[in-house]
């Protein structure tokens, strides 16, 4: 078998789809060709809260998928968390070496195994300014991991996520980011707050008064419609107004 030719064929299949149902069908075919029973292509958000704005297609066992949504596992799922610390596809068996797993995480993974989702391979998909996502391929417990197919799964996962993004964006669900919400001064204050400085310190750094700093942060909160500083930091990190590099860099 010419593996690359197969990869290109799989990619043609996912790129050729015109709607979400076709993509779901195509992905089941792709997963099977790669040696997996199941796939899940998702944004990492609370699916019930996000409604149709978030990408989510899968062919997981129904009972497990319902439980997963009700528990809002999209945001706390250890597989999703692990996919935020790497851009490279990983086998779930490697997760304990990637992120700290809590007792609850281990319980969720054990429950998944009981419900027919044993080991899997997840391809992280991160497009700046948008919710993080991933494409996972999974098998029930006891099936061997198709190691030889994983480089192809990596490629297929990346192209499949992009195919899903395009379908969702033509449905108007993935708006381009709005123009900058903050003034440069507000952004400076938010950035120093993200670096752990208090208002007085920020004032000293920027050469303005503590009260002015507090005012900038308050106005920034109003622009984002949030009440807490922590929410403001999360929102500005999420939309790219500030970056992790800005916070850590110096």
């Amino acid at each position, binding site marked *: 078998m010419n593996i690359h030719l197969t990869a290109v064929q799989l990619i043609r299949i996912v790129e050729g789809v015109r709607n979400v149902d076709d993509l779901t069908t195509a992905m089941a075919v792709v997963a099977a060709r790669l040696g997996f029973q199941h796939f899940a292509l998702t944004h990492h958000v609370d699916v019930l809260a996000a409604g149709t704005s978030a990408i989510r297609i899968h062919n997981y066992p129904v009972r497990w998928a319902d439980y997963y949504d009700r528990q809002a596992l999209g945001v706390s799922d250890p597989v999703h968390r692990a996919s935020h610390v790497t851009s490279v596809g990983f086998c779930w068996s490697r997760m304990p070496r990637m992120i700290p797993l809590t007792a609850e995480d281990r319980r969720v993974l054990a429950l998944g195994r009981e419900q027919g989702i044993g080991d899997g391979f997840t391809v992280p998909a991160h497009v700046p300014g948008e919710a993080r996502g991933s494409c996972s391929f999974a098998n029930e417990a006891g099936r061997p991991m198709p190691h030889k197919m994983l*480089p192809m799964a990596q490629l297929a996962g990346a192209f499949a996520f992009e195919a899903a993004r395009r379908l969702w964006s033509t449905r108007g669900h993935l708006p381009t980011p709005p123009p900058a919400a903050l003034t440069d001064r507000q952004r400076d204050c938010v950035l120093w707050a993200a670096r752990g400085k208090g208002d007085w310190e920020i004032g000293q750094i920027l050469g303005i008064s503590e009260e002015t700093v507090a005012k900038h942060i308050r106005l920034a909160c109003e622009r984002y419609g949030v009440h807490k500083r922590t929410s403001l930091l999360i929102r500005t990190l999420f939309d790219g107004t500030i970056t992790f590099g800005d916070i850590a860099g110096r």
Partner: protein
Amino acid sequence: MLQVLQFGAGPIPDGVLRAMFAARKAVFVDLLKWDVPVLDGAYELDQFDDEHATYLVLAGSDGRHLGSARLLRTDRPHILGSFYSELCEDGAPRGKNIREITRFCLDRSLKAAERRQVRDTLVTALAEHALGEGIAAYSAVAEIGWLQQILAFGWRCVPLGLPRKIDGALLAALRIDIDADTPARLRAAGIAPSPAIAGDARVAA
């Protein structure tokens, strides 16, 4: 303003190209820790920075570097063909109408919102440059995380082989096909050039 430049033998000329080589050092050596040569402790240049390379550079009105990319001819030695041909199932694509995109560089000084504007302007400039010069496709080597972003630009990408781990990084080779539909595909993906950054490309080119 977009400038399309070439650079012959001899010392680095002052101005836009010098600023670009310094910016490349700041990004690829200081930030990304690539093991590539540095000239005079300040400029990142390698053996492909010669009279055969073409540079697309976005510079501010004061000459400040905003973003840049280096295009290499694929009918001559180039990065994919010389170093990473194992990433290509059927060998690296070569031809007079294929260029390799290398050293795609967004200036480190850019804030997040500007980064996106400069990136979008540079991606659009690459497509328009190809259409203007009769370039049918670009090739590129990308780390896997960057690959997802390249796909998200909306242009048509074809993998040239399976990703491989090389020197600790998972790399993949891509061909990006450019045709009359490409500008519309970029727009549909939300890639919008900023007129203030692009300037009048036709005059600059």
